[in-house]
C-alpha cells in the first residue's frame, strides 16, 4: 500500500447547456481511479458550478499509480433518465511520482468529449502521498524520470549513459473498424482512449523497471509509439536511453567524478555472433547484391541499408559486405575495444535484462561534449511483415522478435562501418491493411567510453584521447579502416586537422555537434518519391513491397545526394527517411539538414552527360541544363553564405581530387554501364557527380532538382534543433502544425505524375508556411518534421510540425561576417568594409518591416481600385487604437475592481483620466501577458527555449485523443473539423502543463495524426497522439528586469486606480 492519491474537485466553468428548458445544467463529477469511484454532489442549475468537494482519497499500489490515469467525468444529473456525460478529463499522475518534478497538479482542465470536443473547464487539485517501499521485487518503477528530449536535459548532468531500453505491450483494439462502430457514438472511442492511456502507463512502468535494473534513474529520448494494427490489435512500443542523471546545482562541467583504471582489458567481441550474416535465414540474395552493383558510386556509400521481408518465399537479406575489417591503427583498435568492453561489461551479470546489452543504441541526437568520437554514417534497416492477430496479449513475442531482428541488423551494419554503437536511433512503422513495414535507423558511431561507464577508463588512454581528438573535427574522421572499407568511398585528409582521413560526404541522423565548424548556413533538404504498386493481398503484396523497397531507398538516396551537391554542401544531419505504404503506392520522404562542414572536402559539382553525343541540338540542350545547374550551385553558395577558405594543395598534401575526373552515377534502370568507368568507380577518386541523361525519366529528375525553390529571403529552414550558422535567436517562437490532404484525381497515374504531385504538395506546403509566418522575418523554421500517410486509395496526407524562431539579423550578419573574415584570414579592414556594414543595416531596417507598406497597399487598393468608391463606406475608424488596445483590457480590469455605479462623474473623469492612463499603459506594455487570465504556455519541438533558461522539468506529457463527428458539414467540413481538433489538442496540452505549474512544453512532437472521413455519411474521425516535456522556464531578460521594474509597475497601477475612482 505505498501510495495515497488525493483529489479535490473545486469548480467548473463555461459548461454547456444540458437542459434546454432552463438553459442550465445540473452538473456533478465522478472521480475514478482503478476500480474506485467517488462522486461529488449535484450542483443545481448552473453553468459555473462550485462543488468545492472534500478530498477524495484513493489508497493504491504504486504500480497502479503508474499504470492508471485519473479519470474525471463531468455529468448532467437527470432525475428521470440516465445522466448525460458532459465530458472527461484524463490526468496522468506520473509527474507527481518523481521527487523533483511537480508536487501538485492544480488548475483548469478542458472537459473533453470525443463528439463535442472541449465543453467547458473543470478545476481540479491532485496530490500524491508516497510511502517508501522496501520491497526489492516490486513491479513499479516510481521515481524514474522520463524525458522526450533527445539530449541530456538542460538542468541535469549525465553521470552515466547506460544505453538502450525498449518495451512493447499489445492489446485488442476496442475499435479497429471505426466505420462499423461509429454508430455507437463515444463508447468505443472512449474505451480506446482509456485503454491507450492505461497501456502507456504500463509501458512506462516496465521501461522504468529496466532502467532500475541498469541502475539508472532516468530515460532520455523516450519515444513512445502506437501501431494501430487494425484487426490484429493495438501495439504500444517505446524506446529510450537509460541514464543516470544528476541535478545540476550550478552549471558545472560534464566530466564524471572519478576515472579509476579499469581492471579488465580483455577483448570482448562486439557481437557474440562472429558473423552477422548468419542471422539471415538464407544466403545473401541477388536482390541485395544487385542493389549494390547498381550503386557502385558514392551515392550509396554513406548509408548502409537493407530491406527484407520475413516471408519464406523471399529470402532475408543482410548487409553484404559486413566483414569486420582490420583496425586502422593501434589507437583506434584500442579505443574500440575499450568502448566495447564498456558496453558489454555491464550486461555481464546473468539476469534477464542482459539481452538488452546486445544493442548499443542511443536515442539521443545531441551529446555532452567529447561523447561522440567518430561518426561512421547512417545505418538503416527495414522489414516487411504480415500482421496477424495477436493471440496472447501477455506474450507479445512476435512483435518483440520482429524488432529484435531489425535491431540486430542495424547493429551488424554499424559494425561493418567499424562502429560499436548507434546514435540518433529511432524506429517507426507504416501499416496498410495487413502489411506492415518496420523501419529502424540511426547513425553508426564510436563513442567515448567515459560516459558509458564511470571509472573504467585507463588513464593513459584518457590522455591519448585528449590529445588525439581535436574536438572540432574529430567526429568527421572515419571510424572504419581505410584499406578495407565497407563500401567504396573517397577519402581525403581532414581539412581541419589534416591528420586523419575524412569521407567526402557525411550523412547522419543526429543533430550537428555543437563544436563542429560549419561554413555558412544550413538548409532543409528533402527527397520525395512515389512508386506505384499493384493492389495485392497478403503475401503477394508484401513481396511486391519488399521488391520495391531497395529501389526506393536507392532513389531517395540519389536525390538527397544530388540536392546536397546542388546546395554546395557536404553533410546531412537529422536525416529521417520515411517510407509509407498505401494500397496502391509507396511513398518515400527523406528530410535532413544540409550543411557545409569545414572538415570535409568541398563538394564537386554535378555534371550532366548526354547519351547520344552526336546529336547537336541535344548536346546544346545538355549544355544548357549544365549551365543551369552550375548557376544554381553558385546561387545556393551565395544564399547560404558558403565560402570555404581556399586551401592550397601543398597544405593538404594528399590525394587531391583531379577536377576533371568523372564518376558516373548510374540510374538503377539504365542498362548501359561502361565496364571501364565502373572499375574506375570502385576506387572512388573523383569530385564531380555525373548525371547521365539516358531517358525522359532522367530528364524529369534533373528538372525536378531545379524546381525546388529556396525559401524567400529572411527565411531559413532546417529539421535539426538549431540552424547551423545562426546563433542569435530572439525570444519570439511560434510552434505550429499544418496538415494537408490531397486527392489524386486521375485513375491511371504514372510514377512521374505521382512524383510531381507529391513534390508540389510538399513545396506548396512549405511556401504556405513561409507566407503565413512572414511577419516573423527574419526567422528560421526549426525541427521541420514532415509525416506522410496514405489514409486511402487516392489520398496523400502530409502533416508538418515545426517551430518558427526569430533571430536578430543584424547580429547574424555581424557574426557571420566576422566568421568569414576570420576563416578567410582576411585582415583587410579597410574603408570599404567599414562602409558596407552600416549600409546593410539600413536596408535591413527597411526590409524588416514589410507589413506596413503591405497594409497601406491593401487599404489604398480597397478604397481606390479594389472597391468602387460608392461602395466604400467610411468606417468609424479608431485610428490610434493599435497602440492603445493592449491597455484597454487592463484598464477595464482595474475598473471592474473599483467601479462606482451610476455616477455621472465617473464617465467624465474617465474621459479625463484616459489620456494619462494611456501614457502609463504604454510604458507598461513591456510585459503585456502579465495581466492575462490564462497563462501563456509555449510549445516547441526543440529541447530549449531561446532567450530563456529551463529551471525545472515537471514530467512527461503523453496524451492521446480521439475526436469524431457525425455532422461534418456543419462543423466546416474536414478542414474545419481538423482545425478545431488540433486547436483543442494544443489547448489540452497547455492546460495540463499549466496545471503542473509549468509554462512551456519542450521536445513537443505530434507522433500520430490519423484522419479518416466518410463525407457520404457526414462523418469523420481523427486520432492524435502528442508528447513532450513540461518545463518551467525563466526569461533571461526577466531575471534582471523583474527586480527593477516591480516598484514602478505597482505605482503605476495604483495611480491609475486612483484616477478611475475619483
Amino acid at each position, binding site marked *: 500500500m505505498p501510495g495515497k492519491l488525493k483529489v479535490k474537485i473545486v469548480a467548473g466553468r*463555461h459548461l454547456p447547456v444540458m437542459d434546454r428548458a432552463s438553459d442550465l445544467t445540473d452538473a456533478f463529477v465522478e472521480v475514478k481511479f482503478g476500480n474506485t469511484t467517488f462522486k461529488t454532489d449535484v450542483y443545481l442549475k448552473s453553468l459555473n458550478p462550485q462543488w468545492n468537494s472534500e478530498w477524495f482519497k484513493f489508497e493504491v499500489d504504486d504500480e497502479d499509480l503508474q499504470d492508471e490515469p485519473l479519470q474525471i467525468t463531468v455529468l448532467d444529473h437527470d432525475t428521470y433518465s440516465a445522466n448525460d456525460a458532459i465530458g472527461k478529463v484524463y490526468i496522468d499522475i506520473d509527474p507527481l511520482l518523481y521527487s523533483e518534478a511537480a508536487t501538485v497538479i492544480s488548475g*483548469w482542465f*478542458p472537459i473533453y468529449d470525443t463528439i463535442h470536443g472541449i465543453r467547458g473547464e473543470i478545476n481540479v487539485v491532485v496530490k500524491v502521498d508516497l510511502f517508501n517501499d522496501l520491497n526489492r521485487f516490486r513491479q513499479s518503477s516510481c521515481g524514474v524520470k522520463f524525458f522526450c528530449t533527445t539530449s541530456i536535459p538542460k538542468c541535469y548532468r549525465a553521470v552515466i549513459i547506460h544505453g538502450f531500453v525498449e518495451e512493447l505491450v499489445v492489446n485488442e483494439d476496442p475499435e479497429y*473498424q471505426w*466505420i462499423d462502430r461509429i454508430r455507437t457514438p463515444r463508447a468505443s472511442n472512449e474505451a480506446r482512449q482509456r485503454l491507450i492511456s492505461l497501456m502507456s502507463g504500463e509501458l512506462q512502468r516496465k521501461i522504468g523497471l529496466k532502467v532500475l535494473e541498469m541502475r539508472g534513474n532516468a530515460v532520455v529520448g523516450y519515444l513512445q509509439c502506437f501501431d494501430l494494427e487494425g*484487426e490484429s490489435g493495438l501495439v504500444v512500443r517505446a524506446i529510450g536511453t537509460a541514464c543516470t542523471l544528476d541535478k545540476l546545482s550550478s552549471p558545472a562541467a560534464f566530466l564524471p567524478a572519478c576515472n579509476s583504471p579499469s581492471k579488465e582489458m580483455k577483448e570482448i567481441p562486439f557481437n557474440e555472433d562472429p558473423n552477422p550474416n548468419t542471422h539471415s535465414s538464407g544466403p545473401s540474395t541477388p536482390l541485395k547484391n544487385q542493389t549494390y552493383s547498381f550503386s557502385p558510386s558514392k551515392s550509396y556509400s554513406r548509408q548502409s541499408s537493407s530491406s527484407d521481408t520475413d516471408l519464406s518465399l523471399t529470402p532475408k537479406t543482410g548487409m553484404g559486405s559486413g566483414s569486420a575489417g582490420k583496425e586502422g591503427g593501434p589507437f583506434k583498435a584500442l579505443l574500440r575495444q575499450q568502448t566495447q568492453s564498456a558496453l558489454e561489461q555491464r550486461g555481464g551479470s546473468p539476469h534477464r535484462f542482459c539481452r538488452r546489452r546486445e544493442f548499443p543504441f542511443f536515442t539521443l541526437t545531441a551529446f555532452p561534449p567529447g561523447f561522440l568520437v567518430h561518426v561512421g554514417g547512417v545505418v538503416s534497416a527495414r522489414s516487411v511483415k*504480415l500482421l496477424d492477430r495477436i493471440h496472447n496479449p501477455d506474450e507479445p513475442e512476435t512483435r518483440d522478435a520482429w524488432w529484435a531482428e531489425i535491431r540486430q541488423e542495424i547493429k551488424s551494419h554499424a559494425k561493418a562501418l567499424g562502429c560499436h554503437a548507434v546514435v540518433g536511433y529511432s524506429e517507426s512503422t507504416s501499416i496498410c*491493411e495487413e502489411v506492415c513495414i518496420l523501419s529502424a535507423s540511426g547513425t553508426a558511431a564510436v563513442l567515448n567510453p567515459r560516459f558509458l561507464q564511470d571509472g573504467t577508463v585507463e588513464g593513459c588512454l584518457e590522455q591519448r584521447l585528449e590529445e588525439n581528438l581535436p574536438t572540432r573535427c574529430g567526429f568527421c574522421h572515419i571510424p572504419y579502416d581505410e584499406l578495407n572499407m565497407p563500401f567504396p568511398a573517397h577519402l581525403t585528409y581532414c581539412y581541419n586537422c589534416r591528420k586523419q582521413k575524412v569521407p567526402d560526404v557525411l550523412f547522419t541522423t543526429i543533430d550537428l555537434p555543437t563544436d563542429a565548424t560549419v561554413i555558412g548556413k544550413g538548409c532543409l533538404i528533402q527527397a520525395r518519391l512515389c512508386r506505384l504498386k499493384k493492389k495485392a*493481398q*497478403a503475401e503477394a503484396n508484401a513481396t511486391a513491397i519488399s521488391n520495391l523497397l531497395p529501389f526506393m531507398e536507392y532513389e531517395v538516396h540519389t536525390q538527397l545526394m544530388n540536392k546536397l551537391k546542388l546546395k554546395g554542401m557536404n553533410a546531412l544531419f537529422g536525416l529521417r527517411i520515411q517510407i509509407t505504404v498505401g494500397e496502391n503506392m509507396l511513398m518515400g520522404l527523406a528530410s535532413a539538414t544540409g550543411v557545409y562542414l569545414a572538415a570535409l572536402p568541398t563538394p564537386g559539382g554535378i555534371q550532366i552527360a548526354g547519351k547520344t553525343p552526336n546529336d547537336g541540338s541535344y548536346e546544346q540542350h545538355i549544355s544548357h541544363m549544365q549551365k543551369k545547374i552550375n548557376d544554381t550551385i553558385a546561387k545556393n553558395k551565395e544564399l547560404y553564405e558558403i565560402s570555404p577558405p581556399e586551401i592550397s594543395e601543398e597544405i593538404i598534401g594528399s590525394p587531391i581530387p583531379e577536377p576533371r575526373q568523372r564518376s558516373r552515377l548510374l540510374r538503377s534502370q539504365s542498362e548501359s554501364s561502361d565496364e571501364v568507368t565502373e572499375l574506375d568507380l570502385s576506387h572512388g577518386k573523383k569530385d564531380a557527380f555525373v548525371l547521365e541523361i539516358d531517358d525522359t525519366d532522367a530528364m524529369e529528375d534533373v528538372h525536378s532538382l531545379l524546381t525546388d525553390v529556396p525559401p*524567400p529571403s529572411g527565411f531559413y529552414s532546417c529539421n535539426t534543433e538549431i540552424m547551423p550558422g545562426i546563433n542569435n535567436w530572439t525570444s519570439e517562437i511560434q*510552434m*505550429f*502544425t499544418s496538415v*494537408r*490532404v*490531397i486527392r*489524386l484525381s486521375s485513375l491511371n*497515374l504514372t510514377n512521374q505524375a505521382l512524383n*510531381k*504531385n507529391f513534390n508540389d504538395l510538399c513545396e*506548396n506546403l512549405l511556401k*504556405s*508556411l513561409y*507566407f*503565413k509566418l512572414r511577419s516573423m522575418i527574419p526567422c528560421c523554421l526549426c525541427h521541420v518534421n514532415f509525416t506522410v500517410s496514405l489514409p486511402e486509395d487516392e489520398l496523400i496526407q502530409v502533416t508538418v510540425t515545426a517551430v518558427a524562431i526569430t533571430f536578430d539579423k543584424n547580429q547574424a550578419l555581424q557574426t557571420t561576417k566576422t566568421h568569414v573574415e576570420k576563416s578567410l584570414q582576411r585582415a583587410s579592414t579597410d574603408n570599404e568594409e567599414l562602409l558596407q556594414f552600416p549600409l546593410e543595416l539600413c536596408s535591413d531596417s527597411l526590409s524588416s518591416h*514589410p507589413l506596413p*507598406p503591405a*497594409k497601406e*497597399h*491593401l487599404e489604398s487598393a480597397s478604397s481606390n481600385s*479594389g472597391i468602387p468608391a460608392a461602395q466604400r*463606406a*467610411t468606417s*468609424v475608424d*479608431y485610428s490610434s*487604437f493599435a497602440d492603445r*488596445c*493592449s491597455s*484597454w*483590457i487592463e484598464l*477595464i480590469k482595474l*475598473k471592474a475592481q473599483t*467601479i462606482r455605479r*451610476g*455616477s*455621472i462623474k465617473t*464617465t467624465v473623469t*474617465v474621459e479625463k483620466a484616459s489620456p494619462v492612463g494611456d501614457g502609463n499603459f504604454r510604458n507598461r506594455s513591456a510585459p503585456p501577458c502579465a495581466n*492575462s487570465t*490564462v497563462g501563456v504556455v509555449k*510549445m516547441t519541438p526543440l529541447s530549449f527555449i531561446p532567450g530563456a533558461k529551463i529551471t525545472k522539468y515537471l514530467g512527461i506529457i503523453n496524451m492521446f485523443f480521439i475526436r469524431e463527428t457525425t455532422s461534418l458539414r456543419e462543423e466546416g467540413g*474536414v*478542414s*474545419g473539423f481538423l*482545425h*478545431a481538433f488540433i486547436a483543442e489538442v494544443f*489547448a489540452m496540452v*497547455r492546460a495540463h502543463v499549466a496545471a503542473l505549474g509549468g509554462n512551456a512544453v519542450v521536445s513537443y512532437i505530434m507522433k500520430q495524426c490519423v484522419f479518416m472521413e466518410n*463525407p457520404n455519411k457526414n462523418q469523420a474521425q481523427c486520432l492524435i497522439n502528442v508528447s513532450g516535456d513540461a518545463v518551467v522556464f525563466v526569461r533571461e531578460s526577466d531575471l534582471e528586469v523583474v527586480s527593477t521594474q516591480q516598484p514602478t509597475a505597482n505605482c503605476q497601477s495604483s495611480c491609475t486606480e486612483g484616477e478611475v475612482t475619483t
Partner: protein
Amino acid sequence: MLGPGARSGISALPEVAWRRHARPQQCPARGARAPGVAMTSELDIFVGNTTLIDEDVYRLWLDGYSVTDAVALRVRSGILEQTGATAAVLQSDTMDHYRTFHMLERLLHAPPKLLHQLIFQIPPSRQALLIERYYAFDEAFVREVLGKKLSKGTKKDLDDISTKTGITLKSCRRQFDNFKRVFKVVEEMRGSLVDNIQQHFLLSDRLARDYAAIVFFANNRFETGKKKLQYLSFGDFAFCAELMIQNWTLGAVDSQMDDMDMDLDKEFLQDLKELKVLVADKDLLDLHKSLVCTALRGKLGVFSEMEANFKNLSRGLVNVAAKLTHNKDVRDLFVDLVEKFVEPCRSDHWPLSDVRFFLNQYSASVHSLDGFRHQTLWDRYMGTLHGCLLRLYHD
C-alpha cells in the same frame, strides 16, 4: 492470414466509389489549381500554438467578403508581388484565417469568454484588437439604424441598407447583431451605461460611449432618418446622447435605478411644461429679449437678425421642452431642434461663434428674470440643449 484483411478491403470499396462521384460538388471552390495537375486539395489547415491573426484578412472578413472576394482583393493589394507567393497560397491562407475567425466569432459574442477560453492562445493586445474591430461599425450603417427599434422588422430592412450603403449584407448583420446584443445585455441593468458596456464587452472607452449612444437612441427611438437630419453625423448624435444621458436621465439624479441611463427622467420631462411661462408670459418674454439684446449689442454680427427672430427662436426652444411629455414628441426632438432653431439661424447665416454667444446669453439671462422660479429646471434643460445645439449647428 489472408482472411481478415480481404474482408475489410472489400467493405471499404463501395464508399470509395461513391465518393469519387460526389467529390466535385463538394468542393467547388478548389478549381484554381494549375491545369494538368491531377490533384485536388481535400484538407488544408494551419494551427499555431499562438493563434495567428492577420489584421488585413480580419478586416476583409468583418467587411463580409467571401473567401473568393477576399482573395481577389488581397491579390489586388499587391501582396503576391511583395511576398512572392502564389494565388493558391493566398487562397489557403485566407481560408485558414476565415476558419479561425469563424471559430472565434462565438467567443466574440461574449468578449469576457475570449479572455478566459483555453482553445486559442492569443496575446492580450491581439484579443483587444479582435474585440474592438469586431464591435466597430460603419458610419453609414449606424446612421441608417440609429434610433430604430432593434427588432426583427428592422433586420429585414438590412437588405435595403446594404444596397443603399454598399456595405455587404453580412457586415450589416454583424453590426446590427452587435447593437442588439449590447442592448439586450445592458438593458435593465443598474449602474452607468458606459461602464456596463465596457465591463461586459471589454470595449475601449470611446467605442463603449458610442455604443451607449446607440443603445440610448434605440431605447428612446429618436428620429434620425428624416431628410432634414441627413447632414448630421453619428458623432453629432453621439455627442448629444452623452449630454442627455448625463443630465436628462434617471441616472442623473438617482444612481440606483434599473435602466437609469437609458430612460429619460419622466418627472423632469413633466416639469419642463413649467418653462412654458417664458414664452406664454408676454412680459417675461420681452424682458428676456431685452436682457439678451442689451448684452449682445455690438458683439453679434447678426444682431439685427437675432433681434428680429428672438421671439421665434425662444418660442421654438421652450415649446420643444414643453412637448417632451409625449413620447412621440420625444422621438422628434432632433427634428424639432433642427426645424425650430438650426434652420432659422442657418438661413440667416449666423456664424457658429454668434450662435454660441447667443445661446450663452439666452441661457444666462433667464437667471435675471425675477418672476421666473424654475431656474434649476431651466439649467438642466438648457445646459444640455446648449451643448447639443452648438454641435448640431453646422452645414
